[in-house]
């Protein structure tokens, strides 16, 4: 089985909200102090899912990204966490926010690799919060698609998987023939830490740089403004000697202001 895990780096999603600001002229997000670029959280779960399938059934796992060289630490993290090889495709010129160009570039790169049985992605990358790429990739490849996936088991026939996907009010158990694109959610596993040895090995591994970027489409929706949204509120702290007193005082305020 050949599993391709599509990964990307994002600015640390746990960076304190106060460090975030917007450069409105450039329509770019900024962080001060800088938010560390990290492998996207859900992608870590996708890598772990691939590593588990590899352990259970044997598989080759390729980590793939469409990004500049600044994304290589993320690929190395994927290598340390169980991927066998890493491929980076330089992003298409002028892609901007065109996710479809990214999906086409990923698909083009996947077609140059040994046939992929399973393509795993994270369900969404924190930041622009779009989550388009996995679904688009499935369409471009012509593969069926499942998301958000919270469990995945390979069947003995090696040609199909059984998975769970979340629904609005619960989940479904689904049978799918391979190949398939699955976008995983965090419930699927607890990513293990890479060991120091695997971290060192990953640092020494070679990352394949492929071209295959597919030009962006001029008709993509264009970003015309980015502005900050201040959600912060002036918090009125309830006073009181003990926690119980403060609970009672809160009740009085809620009652008085007609919250109940």
């Amino acid at each position, binding site marked *: 089985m050949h599993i391709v895990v599509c990964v990307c780096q994002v600015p640390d*999603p746990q960076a304190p*909200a106060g460090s975030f600001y*917007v450069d409105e002229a450039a329509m770019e997000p900024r962080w001060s102090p800088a938010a560390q670029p990290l492998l996207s959280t859900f992608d870590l779960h996708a890598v772990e899912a691939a590593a588990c399938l590899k352990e259970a059934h044997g598989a080759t796992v390729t980590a793939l990204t469409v990004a500049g060289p600044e994304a290589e630490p993320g690929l190395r993290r994927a290598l340390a966490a169980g991927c066998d090889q890493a491929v980076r495709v330089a992003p298409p010129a002028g892609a901007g926010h065109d996710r*479809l160009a990214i999906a086409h570039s990923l698909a083009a790169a996947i077609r140059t690799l040994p046939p992929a049985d399973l393509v795993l992605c994270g*369900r969404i990358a*924190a930041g*622009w*919060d*779009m*989550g388009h790429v996995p*679904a*688009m*990739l*499935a*369409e471009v490849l012509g593969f*069926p698609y*499942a*998301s*958000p996936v*919270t469990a995945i088991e390979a069947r003995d026939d090696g040609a199909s998987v059984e998975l769970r996907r*979340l*629904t*609005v009010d619960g*989940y*479904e*158990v*689904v*049978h*799918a023939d391979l190949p398939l694109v699955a976008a995983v*959610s*965090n*419930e699927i596993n607890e990513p293990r830490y890479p060991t120091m040895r695997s971290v060192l090995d990953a640092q020494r591994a070679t990352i394949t740089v492929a071209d295959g970027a597919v030009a962006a*489409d001029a*008709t*993509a*929706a*264009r*970003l*015309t*403004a*980015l*502005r*900050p*949204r201040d*959600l912060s*509120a*002036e*918090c009125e*702290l*309830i006073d009181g000697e*003990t*926690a*119980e007193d*403060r*609970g009672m005082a*809160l*009740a009085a305020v809620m*009652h008085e202001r007609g*919250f*109940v």
Partner: protein
Amino acid sequence: MTGAIPPCQVAVVLASPADPVASAQLLATARRLATVAGTGVFALVTGGEGAPHPDATGADAIVRFATACDVTDPESLLHAAHEVVLRARPRVLLFAHDAAGREVAPRLAARLGAPVITDCVDAHIDAAGTLTAIRPCFSAKALSDWSVPAPHLAIVTLRRDASPGEAASAASPPPDGGLVLPSAPAPRLRVIERHAPPPGELQLEAAEIVVAAGRGVGSRQDFQTAIANGLAKDLGAAFGGSRGAVDLGIVPQELQIGLTGRVVSPRVYIAVGLSGAPQHMAGCSGARTIIAVNTDPRAPIFGYAHLGVVGDYRAVLPSLASELRRLAPAR
């Protein structure tokens, strides 16, 4: 074969029949866009020939399948939406930003090579016909405007509470537009089992008051005592939780609130033992009043809350609940 639907209209893919409010909001936004653009609104209904379609009230016409479409299968919906675009050539295609919309909109965009803007809180069309949709990003810390010039098709998904004030005006169900879509091909994924807890619990999105539990609540049992059978019950409130709470099994996954969960905008949101991570706040920032109970005065939640209590919820909640009972015994 083209039916009676003229091109360049605003098309709406109705939300799940379980959520008529979402469909009504979609139709209201569609009407607003169509009025500016000087066109009409039609809705895709998923029931087969002869099935009632009360959710489509407010549209000028409907299109339907020859036989009923399985709304729980995103691939069928994708197929239908694709057919609608090919045959009726709408200018704008609106979906609800629910589980189906999240998946189908970008897939359709890829299939058509069309622009897509998802999770929008608003959309409008200017005199030149350029559609602009507004979506939150960076965990709701920023808003972004995205535009698609005429005459290109724009695929847009709308967040449920996007335009809470709007409501459909037309009274009678719209006529059939005469466009009947061929049935969807057999789905490639086979659903073996469905698990959904009994719906008894108050619908989160519709609730006036929501009590949200975080990792700090500690255990499912404490949650049951202090919140489910305690404060939330007393207030007649719905409850949900943060991912921290879901991870610990305090609340089930389907009640997760946030960027990758549900989005609520109640009148009062009571956050108990949750730190207020941006990805959580993305799901509740529409609340009119946020009340936080947390032991840590430095918790980020106090930066979003209007009222805050620093303290252990195990002490705060019982006294809060009993005092509320005393002040408003009718409850």
